[in-house]
Each structure stands twice: as structure tokens, then as C-alpha cells.
């Protein structure tokens, strides 16, 4: 048995480096991360804005400025200010299209009035990317996507919609009204995420918005029609789920061998209609 002996790595933050290594370490840092003096102001501003985003309190969610934060070293989250409106979501879609063209972006994860950028390598100066995002957000027009219309039959209530009573209680309305309010709206697919093919839907009437459950259901069936806060959805997979179930539909939201694999795409519209009601 021959063991390959490896020299210790050149830079190891956990070990106390000797003076010479320390110098070379610092030089390495200097030439890698310090921008020329002209760029200092921009960097300073960028970092300052990033910092305030992290240190600001709860109030920032209603401020006019977006919140931009790093998630680890390789992901950045852009969150739009203000309410969950389609106007905001269309601006997120516009931002997504613009960010797609950035060479440092490996993956984009649009969320509900937010966008996560996953970089192929960590940005050396996240502040610059944050500035770019902020500028794009302020200048880009809304992006309108003419999606397809899906009409989906729902079996409301019963064992597969067992949280209908809780939603009705929270809304202070009879369950029948919750159902007619739910299928009275047209919904738009804002983003796909969480589970393969799951669409986050905009268009829920605020009267039936209901917070996520404190104790999630352990085995909610795929196809369960749900409400989570101001968001509506159809669960894509069977499994644990913290959203409130109000009904059920038989629909396959994702097939990895289909092209495209997800049934819904952002911008698609959905209308529900009652197939049956069980109270």
C-alpha cells in the first residue's frame, strides 16, 4: 500500500500561519480583492447598501427600496419592496430576463416578488452586482408574459381539503363563501419552485388569505389545492406541507421525461371550477 503524501495546502485559515505565509496571504488577498482607488467609492456604497439591508429592522419590508442580501458566498437574493402585486412580479420577470444575460449567473430562481441569483463562482464584489440589480429594477419596464389558460376542476372540502374549516374560521366566512371566493378569481403563475413543477399563484382574494400552519400536514397528497398566506397553489408532490388544504384535483404538474418537464410556466393563468363540494 502506497500512500500519496500531500503537501499541506498553501492557504489554510484554520492554522496559525507563520510570518512569511501571513505576508504572502495578505498579498494574495490584496491583489485578488482590492479594487483600484477609483472603484473604492462604488465598492463602499455597494457594501454600505448591503450592510443596511442586513441590519435594517422589520420596517424594511414596506420601504420603497428593494432588499438585497447574500445567501452564502454564491447566491444573492433580491426582494422587491411593497405588496405582492402582479406589477411587482412582472418587474421581477423583467429583472430575471436581464440577469439571464449576465455571464456570472449560473442559475436564476424567481420567487414571489423576489429573485435569487446563483453565481458560477462567488462574486468578488457583491456590492457591484447589488448596484446593477438596483439599477435594473429601477429602469426596466414590466415584462408582460402572455401565458396559457388552464381550467382546473376541484373537489372542494372533504378529507383531502381538511383545512377548509380552519380557513373559513380565519376568514370569518362560511365555507361555501370561501369556495366561491376561491374559484371566483383568475390566478397567475408567478414562479415555479419548492417542489418539481409547483406553481406559486397570484390572485388570491385577501379575504381568504390564511397563514401557513404551525404544524404541517405530514402526508398531503399531490394535487391538493392550497392556501399559504397570500399565496395559492396546487401541491405537486405527496409529502409534508405547511399550507392549508381546501380541495383536491387530479393533475400531473411535473414529468421529467416531458419537454418541458413542468406543466405550468411563469405567466400562465389558472381558473378553478368546483367539480364537487363536501362540507
Amino acid at each position, binding site marked *: 500500500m502506497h500512500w500519496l503524501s500531500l503537501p499541506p495546502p498553501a492557504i489554510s485559515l*484554520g*492554522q496559525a500561519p507563520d510570518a512569511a505565509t501571513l505576508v504572502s496571504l495578505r498579498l494574495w488577498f490584496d491583489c485578488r480583492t482590492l479594487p483600484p482607488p477609483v472603484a473604492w467609492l462604488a465598492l463602499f456604497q455597494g457594501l454600505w447598501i448591503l450592510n443596511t439591508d442586513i441590519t435594517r429592522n422589520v420596517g424594511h419590508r414596506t420601504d420603497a427600496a428593494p432588499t438585497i442580501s447574500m445567501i452564502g458566498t454564491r447566491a444573492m437574493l433580491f426582494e422587491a419592496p411593497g405588496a405582492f402585486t402582479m406589477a411587482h412580479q412582472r418587474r421581477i420577470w423583467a429583472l430575471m430576463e436581464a440577469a439571464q444575460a449576465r455571464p456570472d449567473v449560473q442559475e436564476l430562481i424567481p420567487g*414571489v416578488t423576489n429573485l435569487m441569483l446563483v453565481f458560477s463562482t462567488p462574486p468578488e464584489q457583491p456590492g457591484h452586482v447589488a448596484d446593477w440589480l438596483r439599477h435594473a429594477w429601477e429602469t426596466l419596464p414590466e415584462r408582460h408574459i402572455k401565458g396559457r389558460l388552464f381550467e382546473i376542476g376541484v373537489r372542494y372540502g372533504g378529507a383531502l381539503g381538511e383545512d377548509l374549516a380552519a380557513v373559513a374560521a380565519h376568514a370569518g366566512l362560511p365555507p361555501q363563501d370561501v369556495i366561491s371566493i376561491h374559484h371566483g378569481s383568475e390566478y397567475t403563475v408567478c414562479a415555479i419552485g419548492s417542489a418539481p413543477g409547483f406553481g406559486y399563484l397570484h390572485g388570491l382574494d385577501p379575504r381568504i388569505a390564511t397563514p401557513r400552519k404551525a404544524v404541517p400536514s405530514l402526508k398531503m397528497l399531490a394535487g391538493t389545492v392550497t392556501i399559504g398566506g397570500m399565496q395559492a397553489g396546487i401541491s405537486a408532490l405527496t409529502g409534508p406541507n405547511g399550507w392549508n388544504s381546501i380541495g383536491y384535483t387530479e393533475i400531473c404538474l411535473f414529468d421529467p421525461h416531458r419537454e418541458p418537464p413542468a406543466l405550468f410556466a411563469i405567466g400562465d393563468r389558472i381558473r378553478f371550477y368546483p367539480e364537487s363540494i363536501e362540507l
Partner: protein
Amino acid sequence: MITILETSALNTVQDLGRPGYRNLGVGTSGVMDHVALQVGNILLHNQPGDACIELQTYPFVLRFETAGSFAVTGIDADITLDGTPVLPWSVMTAAPEQMLRVGQPRAGARGYVCIAGGIDVPVVLGSRSTQLRGSFGGMDGRPLEAGDTLKTSGVTTPVAGYGAVPPTSILAAPGGQDSTVINLRAIPATDYALFTAQAHERLWHTQWRITPQSNRVGYRLSGAPLELHQRVELRSYGIVPGIVQVPPAGEPIVQLADANTAGGYPRIVTVIEADLWRLAQARIGARIRFHECTHQQGVAAMAPIEAYLDDLRMMVAHYRKSALRRTGAKPGDKA
């Protein structure tokens, strides 16, 4: 080809993951310990993206139906080939009909059975990794079962009997020498400031215990609860491995390889990418501690790992060349 003779729940085929489909709700999956798979593939002269079997439960027994070189990385355990001990982190060649057995690890949690040429399951959405939630990829989208057969290339390395020094011996642990605690560096995330000063204090000073409700999706930690100034209802946002969320009960969850692509709980910190392999090898019941680090420190922390893998690549290439010269074989000859 190999046949699985003995396995229990949760052992799956994985590669480096399935990036690029998070916008359709498809998480990356892939090995929990990226370093261990890369070491295995370097030792075997495989492609970096070749797939392996990730072990989480033991014992695990397979039979080589055709000859194959292999390496078991990630853990230290009793590993035998037809009863003869085999060292972890090293390359051996099995003849047809020989049985490889991997016992309970002495150190580490996730073992990687890497085979020359990789495990050949169909590529689904760009990867061979098992997507358990979506039930696709890997072996029909499910964990391995006894009786499963997996295609392998039948390739053997021209020389065997060499190994790598495990990363735990080379890469200095971030928090010092205390081996009873796993130290992880973390960067404050979006909602850090929404937590109370006491929560910040607890976050950095608690020795968090990894609860039994921990798996490839995420680790649930137990300790004194982390409280927000006031409750928030967030809109769903993207998730990447390492993000630490705090559900209403106050006990944090570290999201990992099989995490959902989006979530809605407040985000307090993110464990840096360079330390995720240490978390992958942490067992249930182990204690972990978070250490605050900056973006620059988090980026720089990848350098020792890259250097370790580069050195290994170079040493393996040198060793293979010199061993071939000694035996008089020419590169490309079968062993």
C-alpha cells in the same frame, strides 16, 4: 455490472448534482459530501461528474459481476473484499464474483462507493443523481434495494493499491482542535437582524445538537430557541444548500442537498460552501457550532479544498505514470 446484495433504506446513486432546474422546482440533489466524491473520482481517473453510491445506512454489500476498480471514500469503516480488509480512501481492483462489504463507520456518516467509469444509470435532466422527492434519476428515482443491478463500465485501473490522505487529516478544522464539536463557518443572511440580540448570542454560542429528524433534505438542530423581534410572514424565496432557516418554534434547520428549491421561513445565516462536507459527515446526535465569517473569508475558504484536490490529481497522475514505468506496462494496457 454490480448487484446489490444487502442494503437498507436511504442508500442512493448520486453524482455532483443537477444544477439548472431550480427554476422548475427541481433541487440539485447530488452527494452531500462533494469532497469525498471528487477524491474517489480522482483516485479512479474518472470524470469529475461520474456517479457513485452514497451510503447512509450500513452494512452495505455488493457483488462485482464484472471486474472493477473501486474506492470507498467519505468514512473510516471496516471494509472487506471477500473477507480481506480494504482501506478506505484507496483504490483496489475486484475480480468478477468478489463481494465488497462496507460496515458501520468508525468515523464519518456518509460513505461513497466509487467505481472506475462510474455508475451508469440514465441521465435525467442532466444528472444521474437520485431526486427522491420527484421520484426520478438514479435507480428509478428511489433508494437502492437488495437485488438491484447497476451497470458499470468494467474498467480497471492499470495499477491499484494507492490511496489519498483523507481530507480531515489535511484540511484544518475551522474552530480548532476540539473534536467533540463540529465547527462551521456561517455568513449572516437576509433576516439576521430580525432576530433578538439574545437569539444572536445563542446562535453563535450554543452547541447545537443534530436531531434524529435530520436527513439529506436538512438537519434539524436542537437548542435554546431563536426568537424574532416579531413574527413575520415571508413570501417564498429560493433556497440553496447551507441556508439556515428558523421555523416558528425557534429551532434552526440547515437546508441541504435534497432541500426544496423555495421556502418561506426566516433566514438567519448560511453555512459556507467550503464547510458543507463537514456537515455531511456529522452524525445524528453530534454537536455543531457556528462561527461568524465574512464574504471574503467564505470565498477564501474554498482555496484549501481546491489545493487539496489539485495536489491529489497531480500525485495520482505521477504515481500511475511511475508505477506503469516500473512494471514495464504502457499506458492504456489493461492491468
